[in-house]
């Protein structure tokens, strides 16, 4: 258990956080129209008559979006509601052509579930999911292009969103950020959303309250439309601070909607509860209730991809990786693919676990360091997984030492050459001839009589000195294992 209480001069405060994460559903067309979903289009180029709410137009549900929501629900261990209904959320705005958003208020497609997040002390915490529903996105109002007019772009209008609502189970900004990170990873593994915050395809409403431990929850403020994980953390920190300061100075918290301003790193009031619009939800009479069969749900369940948690478990079980290494390797979509490709190509390694450990060290070590230094992502790595595996195979075959391999890796990175070619070219082949090595060991012992004397009189630590001398003489090419074995034999170490 990590202590998340905040201690001030007046005592402890507990923070309570719930999230409503809005994420764009990955689909070629919109939720209720055939118009394409696209960001890189001229304004108003991807708008159907339905999206523009022309008279007489009717919505028709895109079943791909439905399947994506079911997939997401299943991945979040949630109940799939076989009966769900689309409702209209009525309000007027210039970028909402229908005058209502089609959403699911009374009967969402996905009910209660959960997601476990990892805490710093290697324990995990279960965050409850309240519901997931499908809804339409609105268009975009652009106020800063024309001095006196607002411009409307309806390309985004009608694209499908999933709203994932959590229970108020998070107790710190870190937990909230970890939740969103983990959720985002799952959405990407599922392919149900790109969950890309830069493109606005993932944004969150953050509900924050504070209270004294053991007392009922405090009044919450809702921070609308926070569009990065970092901002979620900052908004929570600011809001917690504001609320505690206000309460400690004898004030009260208003139930209100607030906005996060990234430039000042603060939140400000948008509207109070009294000013909250009455959305007049009612079932959309243009759409029939959505009725799913258990077979349909089962079919989707059977075809779910391996999720990050499952992959991590498999890496630990099958490859003998540590929790830490496995967590690092599954933390995006591409790394585990690269990693497993390396492992699968390490044919000269007899012991798969040994190979897997070696691959993990190289991917998380050398490769990540070079990628980071060059600001590259793993899919842009100049060293392919096959080439890295070739290098690691040479280590496995005793052709090259681990130390030399690092030099070869660096060369591969810049020249793009094959590791064997680099080794041949630079004469880096490991010396693994027992006779040849024995001759060198003998010469080292003869050349250092004083050290030999000291060693024999009990200074065991000097063993390393002799290994170093062999390496020096061979330019680092001596097979370390063989050097050790021969030295031990010559020095009569048991």
């Amino acid at each position, binding site marked *: 258990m990590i202590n998340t209480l905040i201690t001030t001069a007046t005592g402890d405060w507990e923070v309570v956080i719930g999230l409503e994460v809005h994420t764009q559903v990955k689909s070629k067309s919109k939720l209720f129209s055939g118009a394409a979903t696209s960001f890189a289009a001229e304004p108003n180029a991807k708008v159907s*008559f339905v999206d*523009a*709410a*022309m*008279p*007489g*137009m*009717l*919505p*028709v*549900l895109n079943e791909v979006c439905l399947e994506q929501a079911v997939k997401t629900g299943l991945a979040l261990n949630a109940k799939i509601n076989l009966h769900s209904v689309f409702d*209209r959320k*009525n309000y*007027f*705005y*210039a970028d909402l*052509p*229908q*005058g*209502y958003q089609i959403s699911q208020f009374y009967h969402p497609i996905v009910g209660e579930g959960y997601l476990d997040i990892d805490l710093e002390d290697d324990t995990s915490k279960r965050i409850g999911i309240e519901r997931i529903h499908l809804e339409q996105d609105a268009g975009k109002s652009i106020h800063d292009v024309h001095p006196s007019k*607002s411009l*409307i772009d309806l390309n985004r209008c009608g694209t499908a969103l999933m709203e994932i609502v959590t229970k108020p189970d998070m107790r710190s900004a870190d937990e909230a950020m970890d939740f969103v990170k983990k959720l985002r990873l799952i959405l990407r593994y599922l392919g149900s959303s790109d969950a890309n915050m830069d493109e606005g395809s993932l944004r969150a409403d953050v509900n924050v309250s504070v209270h004294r431990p053991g007392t009922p929850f405090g009044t919450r403020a809702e921070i609308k439309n926070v569009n990065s994980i970092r901002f979620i953390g900052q908004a929570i920190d600011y809001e917690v601070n504001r609320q505690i300061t206000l309460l400690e100075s004898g004030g009260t918290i208003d139930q209100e909607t607030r906005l996060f301003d990234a430039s000042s790193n603060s939140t400000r009031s948008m509207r109070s509860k009294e000013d909250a619009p*009455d959305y*007049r*939800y*009612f079932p*959309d*009479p*243009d*759409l*029939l209730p959505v009725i799913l069969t258990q077979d349909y749900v089962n079919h989707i369940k059977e075809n779910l991809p391996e999720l990050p948690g499952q992959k991590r478990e498999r890496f630990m079980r099958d490859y003998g990786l540590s929790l830490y290494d496995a967590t690092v390797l599954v933390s995006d979509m591409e790394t585990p693919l690269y990693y497993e490709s390396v492992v699968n190509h390490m044919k000269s390694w007899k012991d798969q676990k040994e190979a897997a450990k070696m691959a993990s060290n190289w991917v998380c070590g050398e490769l990540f360091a070079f990628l980071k230094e060059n600001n590259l992502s793993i899919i842009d790595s100049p060293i392919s997984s096959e080439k890295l595996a070739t290098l690691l195979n040479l280590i496995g075959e005793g052709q090259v030492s681990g130390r030399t391999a690092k030099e070869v890796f660096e060369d591969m990175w810049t020249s793009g050459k094959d590791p064997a070619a680099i080794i041949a070219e630079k004469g880096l082949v490991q010396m693994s001839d027992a006779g040849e090595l024995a001759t060198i060991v003998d010469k080292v012992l003869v050349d250092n009589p004083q050290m030999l004397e000291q060693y024999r009189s009990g200074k065991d630590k000097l063993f390393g000195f002799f290994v170093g001398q062999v390496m020096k003489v061979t330019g680092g090419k001596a097979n370390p294992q063989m050097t050790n074995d021969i030295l031990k034999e010559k020095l009569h170490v048991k």
Partner: protein
Amino acid sequence: MTELTRLTYGALRQKLLSKSITVKETIEAYLHQMAQTRSLNAFVSEYADQALAQAEESDRRIQSGAPRPLEGFPLAVKDNFCEEGMRTAAGSKILENFVPTYTSTVVKRLQEAGAIVLGKTNMDEFAMGSSTLTSHFGPSINPWKAKGDNADLIPGGSSGGSSASVAAFSSLGALGSDTGGSIRQPAALCGIVGMKPTYGLCSRYGIIAFASSLDQAGPLTRNVEDSALLLREMAGHDPKDSTSLVYEVPDYTKALGLSIKGMKVGIPQEYRPAGLNAEIAQWWDQTIQWLKDAGAEVVDISLPHTKYALPAYYIIAPAEASSNLARYDGVRYGLRVPGGTLDDLYIKTRTEGFGDEVKRRILIGTYVLSSGKYEDYYLRAQRVRQRVTDDFTQAYAKVDVILAPTTANTAFKVGENITDPLAMYLQDVFTVSTNLAGLPAISVPVGLSNDGLPIGMQFIGPALHEERLFQFAHVVEQAANFQLMRGVGI
């Protein structure tokens, strides 16, 4: 030329196929009649040029021996059906200059079957009304006049322009939409046949919505056969309307002439309240007698929740309308009255663009959906709707079809009732239950009141039993031998 406009489609088609007349001559006759009856204000736009061009195309098809099922059918279309390139205003100032770039599925299907659209017909604004009095383009006039009284009468509504046109021979058939009686009531008041199909039988794609869960397109015609012919081409699944039913549409004309011997007709006691217009009650009894004569068995039934249907309707329909009409905001199309702020633009545009009745219903709808009222009004109305539906389900366990008057009165004078919304809402008392339950119903003219105005009776059937309705309506049509020409002074 006038005689051409008096023919049924069956008779017209025979003449067209035998080449004794052309589609062009037929369309010219109708356009002539349209011009002669312009004072009725049945049409809000006329498509003479387009209709004549299509007539030539139809004639070519007939010449080449490949006529389509409705080749050359002179059709009027209610002004809430979108047609590409043709102004579609739905009786509202807010859409006065709106020209769609798409065509409603129903119009498209009829056109593809060979029907020729002569023009768009007047209607109550956004189909909210039973008289056409709420139209921005002024009321339509019923071709009928009461005996010895030259006062203009309303044609009913909201499909009043369509019914006036069909009764005045300026179209052979017309499209209407029925949300709470908007096809059947004007059909009854104009002495023609009005068919409201099962909810979901005809696509709503491209029809300007009033109340989505109730709206249904249907034909208005001068006889049952033409109704069956039009419906057959209109109906059928449309993937562009999620509420459209997957259903194989039968040839409805095959039901015409089938015996009703031994079939059971339910007479709902709730439709015969103490103060029911005596003449309407009398024609109801007469209709029952005709059915008995044809061998049907008449059974008294009860639809106990009938009295709650009208209030429930006037909650559900405005609720949906308040949301459906939110899109008319002056931002993208239609009327825009500039304002200093976005809210100002909305307020000015909608204040100027909508008429009183539409505003009234938007207010009612907004109220019944608002926080704290939703459970008391909207949800309760939905429960009533379920009860009303259950009433019918139980009734159809005992009877094949239900017979009731379409309206409580004959056509009233232009200018009456308009100040009293409640009196207007009561016009729908016999028709709304059918819409709430999503059932099909057909109104047929049975006779005239003492002052010479048409009276209609409606058959209400189980879902997707349109064939049965045509079968019964045809029996009554034969027995009544209703003569449209006799009353219409045209």
